[in-house]
């Protein structure tokens, strides 16, 4: 299945794009998706410890099992205000 991924804030610059599509097998957790993304975009891997992950509009962790149609967002710590 394919998963749409959006990189927000300066993560888009580090990735070299603001969006990408990744093909993963059924029942892949977010951690599996991240492994593929870090291989394709190594600059993001250096920030993995501070990376925030959302599926849709909810925060999720690496154990979340992806479903077809999920839209994953990766971004740095937020800075509103």
């Amino acid at each position, binding site marked *: 299945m394919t998963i749409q991924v959006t990189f927000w804030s300066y993560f*888009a610059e580090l990735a070299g794009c603001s969006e990408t599509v990744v093909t993963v097998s059924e029942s892949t957790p977010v951690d599996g998706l991240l492994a593929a993304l870090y291989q394709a975009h190594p600059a993001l891997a250096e920030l993995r410890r501070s990376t925030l992950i*959302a599926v849709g*509009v909810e925060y999720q962790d690496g154990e979340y099992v992806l479903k077809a149609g999920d839209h994953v*967002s990766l971004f*740095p710590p*937020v*800075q*509103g205000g």
Partner: protein
Amino acid sequence: MKRFLSITRDPIDEAGLVADRTLSSGMGAAVYFSGVVRGQEGSDAIVALDYSCFVSMAEHQFHRLFDRLAERGSVESVRLVHRIGRVAVGESSLWIEVVSAHRAGAFAACQWVIDEMKQVVPIWKTPVTAANASSPSNPNPTA
């Protein structure tokens, strides 16, 4: 609990917001906070901040905060406006008002929303200096 949320590229009309305030007879405190862009970010002089935002998630996360605020029970209304895009030094990027029965509850609720917002609402800021002021504001086309 009444709520109003706006994430906008337009300047924040603080006077208009204050003029539109409503509160019931049992309410004795209206506390509002205006966050203004400073002329320095760390040790660097800046002319503006570029705010980018994952709008649909930001709206969702703000409303989750408002839901939690409502559960606290003492707030009659909350209104919050967050500006995105380029905000010049001296302009307001955030305006929030809490109406409650008493001063302590209103101040505490206002502070709580801001503190929580800074943890969960996906908004980011990029300093703009005089040297890079002509650069594009952010890499996310929807922000």
